[in-house]
Structure formats: C-alpha cells, structure tokens
C-alpha cells in the first residue's frame, strides 16, 4: 500500500460518511412514490383472450406446470353448401397459479399468437396462497397495464415483422413511382413501361385469382409412392394443383395483354 500517515485511513472513512450525510439520500419512499419500472419488467402475466387459440404450448412449456387450461371444441357449420364443417377451440378456463410461477417468461415467449404479455404489475399480494391462482378475467384486467415494448438498440437486427413491412412499403412505393412515370410518359417506351407496369399489376392481381382446390393426381401418386400418408399426400397435391392453376391463369392474363408471347402460353394453358 502507498505509505500514508498513520490513522489517516480512519479519518478518510469519517469523511466519506460525513459527505454522504450532507448529500440528499437516494431512498424513494414507496408506497407514496411508485417505482419507475422499465417496459420489459416481468411483473405479472396478462392474457389477451381473443388471440388465444388454445394451442396449449404455454402450458406444455411451463417448467412448473402452473398454467391450467380447459377448452372444448365448437363445430361451426360450413359457410357454403357441401363444405366441410369447421371445428374451433373455445377457451373455457385459463388460470395461472402465481404461487408456482417462477416468472421465467417461457410461456410469453412461445405463444405463437401473441396472447400472453408481461405486465409490470407487482402489487397483487393476497392473504391466502390459494387466492394466487388467477383466472382469465383477472389476467384480462392486467392487459390494460401492459406497456409498449421499447425500441431496440442501435445495431440490432430489425425484426422480420418490421423488415417485411418495410420491404412491402418499399415495393409499393416503387410501383407507385413506376406508375406515375408511365402515366406521365405514355408515348415513350411501349414495351418497357407497360411490361414493368404489367409485372407490377400481375403481382398485385395475384391476390384475386381464386382457384378451387382439387387434387393434382400426378403429385398425389408420386407422394404416396414415396411413402407419405394419404392425408399428407392429398394436402400437398391440392397445393400443387392450386399453384399450377394460378401460374396458368397468370400466364393467360399476361399472354392476353402481350399477344406476341401468347403462342406458347396457349399451349401451356392447354396442358
């Protein structure tokens, strides 16, 4: 240690305490002053019942098995004649036993439908431990206290929801720009602008191509031969059929608008 005067260490210690006494204290007087909690605080779990599809992932993943879910299936009559009746899960009971819960957040993390949220509420003590099992009514009440998530740090990867939205917005803006360009220059570039315009219109119009799903026999046979189950093969064959039909219709439309390329399309449309 550096050579110091004897007993100077004692005096330095006295100085520190005196200095601390003179400066205002850092105590915040709860309960008169509520604590300032950050948005990600894990206080209590809130449930947005409308989003829950009773997939039971949260109950399965909970390390303490403290989520109790009861449900039943409702049969909904088909929308059209001859259609298949739909079944939907209905949530009867969703209870979390907060006496067991260890506030790890796995249930909130795994929920694929964004039905569970963290709320910074912490003042829910009860006199009896049995009252710590809260039902979905109380969990819904806590939804009102859920704060908005904070912005991510500079340098973080942008989440896919935001990046997809940004990408779509960018494409829409580009399409808009192209359209304006085409509108302002109708004589210039017969192929370039319309083709670009058609391409944009094509993708935009994809959404209103409606194809009734039927089983594409080739795909079905191929998949069954590979060993997949009939149900899976049927589903994949239907998807393949829809994909082929949509592509055909798209080609038809494109072909009908640019006649020079229509020849092969006509063949393909037939095949």
């Amino acid at each position: 240690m550096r050579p110091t005067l004897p007993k100077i260490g004692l005096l330095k210690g006295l100085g520190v305490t005196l200095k601390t006494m003179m400066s205002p204290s850092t105590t915040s007087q709860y309960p008169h002053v509520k604590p300032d909690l950050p948005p990600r605080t894990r206080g209590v779990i809130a449930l947005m019942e409308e989003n829950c599809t009773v997939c039971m992932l949260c109950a399965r993943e909970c390390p303490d098995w403290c989520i109790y879910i009861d449900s039943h299936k409702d049969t909904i009559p088909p929308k059209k004649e001859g259609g298949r009746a739909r079944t939907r899960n209905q949530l009867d009971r969703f209870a979390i036993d907060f006496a067991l819960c260890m506030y790890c957040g796995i249930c909130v993390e795994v929920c694929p439908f964004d039905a569970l949220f963290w709320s910074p509420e912490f003042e829910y003590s009860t006199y009896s431990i049995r009252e710590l099992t809260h039902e979905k009514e109380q969990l819904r009440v806590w939804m009102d206290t859920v704060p908005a998530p904070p912005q991510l740090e500079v340098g973080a990867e942008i989440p896919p929801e935001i990046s997809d939205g940004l990408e779509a917005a960018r494409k829409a803006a580009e399409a808009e720009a192209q359209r304006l360009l085409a509108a302002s220059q109708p004589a210039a570039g017969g192929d370039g602008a319309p083709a670009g315009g058609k391409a944009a219109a094509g993708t935009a119009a994809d959404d209103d191509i409606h194809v009734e799903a039927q089983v594409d026999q080739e795909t079905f046979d191929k998949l069954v031969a590979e060993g997949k189950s009939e149900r899976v093969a049927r589903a994949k064959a239907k998807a393949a059929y829809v994909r082929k039909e949509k592509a055909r219709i798209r080609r038809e439309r494109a072909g009908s608008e640019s006649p020079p390329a229509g020849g092969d399309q006509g063949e393909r449309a037939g095949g």
Partner: protein
Amino acid sequence: MTDLETMTTERGQGLLPGGPGEGMLVEVRGEGELTTQDMNLNIGPQHPATHGVLRVVIDLDGEKIRRAQPIIGYMHRGFEKLAEARDYRQIMALVNRHDWLSAFNNELGVAIAVERMMELEVPDRAQWIRVLMAEWNRILNHLMFVGSFGLELGAITPVFFAFREREDIQHLMESATGGRLHFSYARVGGLKEDLPRGFLAASAQMTKNVRVRNAEYRDLLQGNEIFVARTRGVGPLPRDVAASYGVTGPTLQATGVPEDSRVTEPYEKYGEIDVKVPVGTNGDSYDRFMVLLDRIDASCDIIDHVLDNITSGPVKTNLPKVVKAPEGAIYVRTENPLGQCGYYLVSDGKKNPWRLKMRTPSFNNIAAMPYLLDGALLSDMIAILGSVFFVVGDVDR
C-alpha cells in the same frame, strides 16, 4: 446426514451437536493439567454471518477454535434431478437459481455446453452482449460481497452503498432482461432478444459511477486501519492447499495464482479482450477483499471494451422449435464470479439432458473451511466466513 451420530472428538466421546443436551461435556484431560472444557458451538443454520443456511459446528476453547466442520445440505433442491426432466430452455430458467448472485453466468454455461455439443455458431453480436451481461453480473456479485463483508466485521455503512450500486445496475439489467435477479436472458444459439435503446449509453455511464464509488469503498474499508487489523493475516490460505481443495475464483487469486478461465480457456469473446486478473500475495482475508475490489475495476474495463467493439447483427440463431442436443457428453468450464463453474452435460439425443452435473465453485471454496478455521479466534471465523466467498444455493444446489 447420519454421520452426525458417529461424529466423535479426539477424546472418543460421541457428540450430537444441535440436539438436546448438546455439547456440555466435562472431560478431564491428562494428569496434573489444568482441566478445561471445550465448548461445542453451533453456528447456524440460521445465523446473521453465514451467507444463508450453512452450519458450522465448532469446538471452542475460550475464543480459539480447535476444530470446525461445515455441514451442508440444508438447501439441497435437487437441481440435477430436476434438470433431467426439463428441456434446455427450461433448464436456463432453473439454473439461474443455484448461484443466484451470478444468474446470467450460470445460464451462459448451460448455453455454451449445448451449443458446443450441437456445434452451433453463435452470432457475433450475441457473443458481445453475453460478455457484457456476464460482466455486469460479475460486478453485481462482487458488490454484494463487498458490502456484506464489511457488515460482518461491524462496518454497517458500506453495505448500503453497495446495495445502492446494485439497485442501479439491477435497474439497468431489468430494462434489458425483465428481471432483477433471475434474468432468463440467454438461450441456446444466442439471446432471448436484443437490448433496448439506450442500454449501451446507460452502461457507459454506469461504469463511470461504479468506478467512482469503488474509490469510496477503498476509502471506507480498504484503507481503514481497524479493517486492516481485522483482516490482515487472518485465514491465510497457501497455494498448494488451495489447489488441493480445488478452490477457484477470487479466493484462489488472492493466494497469488492468476488462474482465470476467461484467460486460460476463453469462451465467447473473451479471447479478444485483455482480461486483467488481479492477484494477492498470501491469501488472507485482506487479500481476498482487495482482489474483489480490483476485479470490479477490471470488469468495468471489460465492459468499456465491449461497448467500444460491439457489432451489429442478429442475436438469435434459427433453431428448430424443440432444441435437441446430439448424443454425447461435454464438460464446459466458465468463470463464474465466485470461481470456476463446470457443467457436465450428457445427452442421449432427446430434448432433456440425460444427466447434467454441475461443478459449483462454492462447494470447493467451503471445503477449505476446516483448514482455514483451525486455530482461529471466533471473531476471525466471521472474517474468514465472509471472505471465502460462497452462496449456499451454489454449495447445495
């Protein structure tokens, strides 16, 4: 704990410490000697000085300790068995809790074990943030022991200052992870989510605060003559004894051995950081305390380094919904704040481990207790217990 019934003193008399009528044996030793009576005292399991439910049974001759035996197991929760029935993300939430003062470092160990088994590459940014969180957790842990060591010796003020710092840092950690003590932030393949905006700036400001307050602790304790008189020369631990007991961490570094897993087997980004390892000279309580204060400063340096060099990018890896480690076994050593923590993970391809054995630092640290306490005074025992850093949850799991 049945060997209590057969525990005997040198005089061959059976004792049942802690039971009714314990300890007040009258023994006559030798002919012509002054007859004395050794008092058998039970420190703990509930005691203000033992950090948690540690029980030390001591034979006292006046104020001198003739024999000491720590009795552990009061906090055994069956972690390793619980881990066999849970998948890897649930184990992270559990493993926060055995050494609750270094929660993130524990999670990190498990994450690294599974990632090494799966030969997974963790994104750069995730590694930097993991180092940042681990070092903040290290500072939290060391601040706790700085405060409580002074408290046990009678200095009742530094503990409040230390906890004031801890509150500030915990607020910072809460803004990123959601928890103040149990973080549940690391995941296999990276982290749960990225940091919130403003975290890095707040971190930079906080390291400045911690450095300033560290100087205050040095003034209040390290330079205080009474403190030095209470701790210098108390409980010296020679290097070979420490090595034979498997003592690691600040307790070992105080004896003069610069053994630190962050330097010898770097994990995450520690290979790119210049980690300072402060060492003491003779391993007494004063050296252990001084090493702790120096390690806080060293962790502040590491955090500053991370803040300068952090990269951008994702913090998660695309993994299947259920993480399954391939068959095999792996042993991972990480440098927890209390010492070297080892995870021996044996997997049989399922989503639960087949066996997760933890080598916890506190277990070996208190194994050196009988050696340290032999011949010490009762007041020295408090100084030694406070300076051999351990957390009872870590000892017993």
